[in-house]
């Protein structure tokens, strides 16, 4: 894909728009945007692994939770400054990523997915049983240090973080490495038959995914200032991440971002109409409809509209 002059202009306008947004909208919308940014980060983290290599992981909350708990415990119980606790959390999450990798060396498909789901549930139980004086048990922890004050600073931080991660992931996936990771999802044996080591490629995908999950989890915790096991190691959280990536369009970087914003805002707008958990029913409905009519997600719908309006000038 060539980045022409009009592309640069579009990006410049988008960046300026993002920058002035806090002075245009209220703090309620800003808070929704912040949540969407973090969900986008989590969805990208899932997609770097599952959207490419085809190893459908239900372990993303496990990874995000490790990052979140590590930095929460370090700052709250051991008074470690955030400049140290966040990198430490990312490292610990990457170790967690290796734990998720282990079953992937032997299992595929739904078997792999179920093992990763077990990891998440295991963590939920462990947090309550092992040293609740440190983890805060079922109630979690509150009064954690926060990175920013006020909605607009939180917005700038989360947007910057999300865009940095998205851009890095996008550039990486454009290389031959991205191609090889997609090939794993199509036929792992043939990747090996082409002389490439699938284990090395998978290790990279799992570690990269864990890196993003850990980073997102740690920043998210220091945005919320609190942490609770049922908010992290939870099936609803897992499905929100999966739905964001799938509804937006998995196997791309922009798709999970689109999906995350779509879902977060949909949820917010539905709040006055459906105050309870029924809102998740609408989630399921949207996902189902999209899956029946456009399995490749919102991104594919946008692309089709673009082609219809401007003709097929495919550039990438």
């Amino acid at each position, binding site marked *: 894909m060539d980045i022409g002059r009009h592309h640069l202009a579009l990006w410049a306008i988008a960046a300026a728009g993002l920058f002035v947004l806090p002075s245009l909208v209220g703090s309620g919308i800003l808070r929704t945007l912040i949540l969407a940014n973090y969900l986008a980060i989590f969805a990208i983290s899932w997609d770097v692994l599952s959207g490419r290599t085809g190893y459908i992981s239900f372990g993303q909350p496990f990874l995000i939770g490790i990052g979140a708990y590590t930095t929460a415990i370090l700052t709250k119980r051991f008074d470690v400054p955030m400049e140290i606790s966040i990198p430490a959390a990312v490292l610990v999450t990457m170790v967690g990523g290796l734990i998720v990798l282990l079953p992937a060396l032997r299992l595929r498909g739904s078997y792999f997915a179920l093992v990763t789901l077990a990891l998440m549930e295991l963590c939920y139980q462990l947090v309550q049983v092992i040293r609740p004086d440190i983890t805060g048990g079922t109630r979690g922890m509150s009064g954690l240090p926060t990175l920013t004050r006020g909605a607009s600073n939180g917005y700038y931080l989360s947007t910057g973080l999300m865009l940095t991660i998205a851009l890095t992931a996008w550039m990486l996936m454009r290389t*031959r490495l991205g191609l090889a990771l997609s090939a794993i999802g*199509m036929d792992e044996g043939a990747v090996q038959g082409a*002389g490439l080591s699938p284990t090395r490629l998978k290790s990279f995908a799992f570690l990269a995914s864990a890196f993003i999950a850990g980073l997102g989890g740690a920043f998210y915790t220091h945005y919320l200032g609190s942490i609770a096991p049922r908010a992290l190691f939870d099936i609803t959280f897992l499905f929100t991440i999966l739905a964001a990536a799938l509804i937006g369009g998995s196997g791309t970087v922009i798709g999970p971002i689109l999906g995350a914003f779509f879902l977060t805002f949909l949820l917010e707008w539905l709040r006055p109409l459906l105050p309870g958990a029924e809102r998740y029913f609408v989630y399921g409905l949207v996902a189902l409809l999209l899956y029946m009519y456009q399995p490749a997600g919102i991104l594919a719908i946008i692309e089709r509209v673009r082609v219809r309006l401007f003709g097929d000038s495919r550039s990438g």
Partner: protein
Amino acid sequence: MTIALGISDLGKRFGGLVAIDGLSLAIDDGESVGLIGPNGAGKTTIIGLIMGELRPDSGRIDLFGKDISPLGVAERIRCGISRTWQIPRPFANLSVIENIRIGSMPDSLRGMIFDRSDPIRERELAMSVGLAKNDLERKASDLAMGDLRKLEMARTLAAGARILLLDEVFAGLTVGEIDHIAAVIQNLRSRGITFLIVSHDLPALAPLIDRAVAIDRGRVIAEGPLDDILDHPDVRDSYLGR
């Protein structure tokens, strides 16, 4: 003449079934050998063992005089040996040229990220197996069987193969496609590529090989020119039953 591929005393059991039973075989550099035998004789198993997809119970395999037994699949391919499958295994959602690119990648993350791909070489490889210019951007899933077989050969050549193991290379092809593939193989032979070709289509196989090896129940039962072998009583028995 250097021996490109040397197999000595190879053995492989699947539970109680002896699939390969002390099989030895040597293929010279630049030679083309046909591997024939009835269904279940162990032809595909041999290819799996040579590539390291299966672990042998006994014996050793040498590539240009180097013992490759301890190496994994990807490492063996880097040593210059590759295979194709009975049912082609393209990366269905990638284009023809992207499929070839996967074969030509270095097996290191650094190399994949920072080294540039070589579009000229990729195109040459596609042309060398007879793929048409306007097929290069097509999705592999849109190709006909004959083109898929060509694509697989291009991908193995991209990985630097000097020895090609072709498993049932004519299966599922039309008569015209068989001629095309045969021409590609002849062309590669003239460029010094060594072949081990498994096929049931003996008339198509005959002009492509220097000699044939017949196996049954995991053992070599006859070796030599294809015509002589087909007259061999053991070979007749194995195909037709006693």
